[in-house]
């Protein structure tokens, strides 16, 4: 029903956001692409002013043939997948619990969403030192209290520990979205099913879960966007050791530790490709689910 005039007005109004984001995407992307075909080792005196040597696909070949590449892709997927599964499953359970009437709902909700406000560096530091320290951490005190041998979390179960920390940060988000969705569930429908004698598990499977599908999609979409670029939690806790080196972290090591900008940029291009594969995959599902 929109008129021609409002259509062109709409384009103009959209322009700033689109142009800015396009610039924000393209300018660094083009620079990254450019560097990825160059030998760029600043510590060996290479610089833009002096001109960089063209090396063709050397950086791409070297990055992908490095022994660290595939493990890092795997680590990335395990980490993102692990956090998604934990937050969605626990989020659904927690949301269903919080949906029940109980005393002190307001306070409980405040406590549950609190981790979301904690900046990633702080939460990584707090977990690493106060919670997971093998000597003075709360968890090791707890283990000793029950007569168990304290666990050296960050070296014995490094990936699990990081997944735990990140899940702690994102559980509030998942819970809140799912809780809002559950609250909008038609209780009469549930009651009717209860009257019909449908067992709880079946009610959950056939009524609650389908109702939540849209909310779950949102949780997965938004979290994936943030989880693919997890950095502070790894940097602070293990520094990429013990098999916690994600693709993002591997690029960081190539760019910052090794100061090999060409190699790191090639890695960046791979990461962009990976992100886009995940994105297309996600967009397909999300696009469908959002139309509902």
């Amino acid at each position, binding site marked *: 029903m929109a008129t021609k005039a409002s259509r062109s007005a709409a384009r103009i109004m959209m322009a700033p956001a689109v142009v800015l984001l396009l610039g924000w995407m393209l300018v660094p992307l083009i620079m990254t692409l450019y560097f990825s075909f160059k030998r760029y080792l600043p510590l*060996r005196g290479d610089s833009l002013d002096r001109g960089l040597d063209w090396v063709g696909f050397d950086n791409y070949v070297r990055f992908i043939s490095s022994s660290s590449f595939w493990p890092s892709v795997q680590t990335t997927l395990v980490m993102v997948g692990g956090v998604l599964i934990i937050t969605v499953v626990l989020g659904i359970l927690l949301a269903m619990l919080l949906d029940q009437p109980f005393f002190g709902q307001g306070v409980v909700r405040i406590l549950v969403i609190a981790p979301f406000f904690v900046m990633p560096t702080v939460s990584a530091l707090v977990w690493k030192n106060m919670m997971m320290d093998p000597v003075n951490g709360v968890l090791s005190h707890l283990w000793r209290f029950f007569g168990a041998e304290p666990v050296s979390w960050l070296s014995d179960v490094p990936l699990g520990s990081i997944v735990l920390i990140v899940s702690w940060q994102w559980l509030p988000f998942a819970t809140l979205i799912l809780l809002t969705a559950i609250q909008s569930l038609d209780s009469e429908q549930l009651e009717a099913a209860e009257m019909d004698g449908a067992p709880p598990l079946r009610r959950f499977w056939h009524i609650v879960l389908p109702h939540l599908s849209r909310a779950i999609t949102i949780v997965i979409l938004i979290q994936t966007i943030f989880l693919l670029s997890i950095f502070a939690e790894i940097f602070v806790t293990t520094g990429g050791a*013990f098999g916690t080196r994600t693709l993002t972290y591997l690029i960081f090591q190539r760019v910052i530790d090794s*100061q090999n900008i060409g*190699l790191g940029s090639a890695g960046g291009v791979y990461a962009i490709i990976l992100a886009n594969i995940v994105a297309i995959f996600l967009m397909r599902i999300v696009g469908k689910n959002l139309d509902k």
Partner: protein
Amino acid sequence: MSLKSTLRAATALSLITAGSAFADGHSATITIATVNNGDMIRMQGYTDQFTEETGIAVEWVTLEENVLRQRVTTDITTNGGQFDIMTIGMYEAPIWGSNDWLVPLDDLSAEYDVDDILPAMRAGLSYNGTLYAAPFYGESSMVMYRTDLMEEAGLEMPAAPTWQFIREAAAAMDDPENDINGICLRGKAGWGEGGAFITVTGNSFGARWFDEDWNAQFDQPEWAEALNFYVNLMNDYGPEGYATNGFNENLSLFNQGKCGMWIDATVAASFVTGDDSTVADSVGFALAPNSEGVDKRANWLWAWALAIPAGTQQADEAKQFIEWATSKDYIELVAENEGWANVPPGARTSLYETPEYQAVPFAQMTLDSINAADPNNPTVDPVPYTGIQFAAIPEWAGMATEVSQEFSAAYAGQQTVEEALANAQAIANETMEAAGYR
């Protein structure tokens, strides 16, 4: 390039507005990036005195070591110019100096007495004979041990122990029931953490990173011996989770009385005998060990030093600060207020000639340890690089961090020593090939 000029104009405009709103009217302010070690924190406390004397205000950017390295390296390679003084180490100084990224410190005043700087430190912070960074403090590594526990065990620490004796002593002092580990050592990944320690341990077993043609040497028996010795020692008598312990974690353990021995930086001596330590009265010191029959000890050599990036607008003010912070007067200032044991050690010859400082229990051992380290001949067999716990090449930081991550994974039991060495060999050779050494 009209877009660029437009952007520039817009930026300039916003900068002027932002700048005028927040400018504080000071004549000169220098920005210093530093590491959050105790001696630097102390220096921050005395900054007001410097400002009073010179009228130059100082902004501190204090960061944890890893973050600091990341920040200053990016800043220097992109010519960011965010800092007027950077705290760097012996690894960075010669490489950056050779790229002309640092202001040469060749015109320091006569009172500063540059010849007083310990020769080992001065050499390590110079490139082609030109000093590029002034040492704030310097260190080697040595054995710190609990005299009370040694006595109980009926052992006596020689002034220059071997690894074999260290193992014997660790076995004797290990007391899990009372929460005492025989020995605490660094295992944390990172070239400056566990990487530095295992490299000097390798040196003291006759191992080396590269032969003279830059071929990685992790497939040689010396490395297997060194790494196996370390892993067995730590698994038998080390603390839980040692694979994530670095300097700070071990310091904290030692201060809580949970370690019989600790082999680490000589600067730790003033902390383990200081107020925060529960075992301050019973700490002894000895030279870093060697394996029996090997000519090299596990001594490293390091200095935290102040350098001026070439891009700064305030080189003169920065130089003034450096002269102040690394001077004899500064040492005396700290000695007056905090006692001689707490002055920044290892930088100046005159400090070790001061009678008051000679009375400090760890002074002589620190100096001996520094003197025992030789960056030009770090290993038994010849190597193509200088540096003891590092090789002074640009590729080192990235490569050694990855290698130390492989080692840490072995400490944590995620892979065997053999697997770790094989991976290290591959990483080192890959890096050397990529960089065109071989």
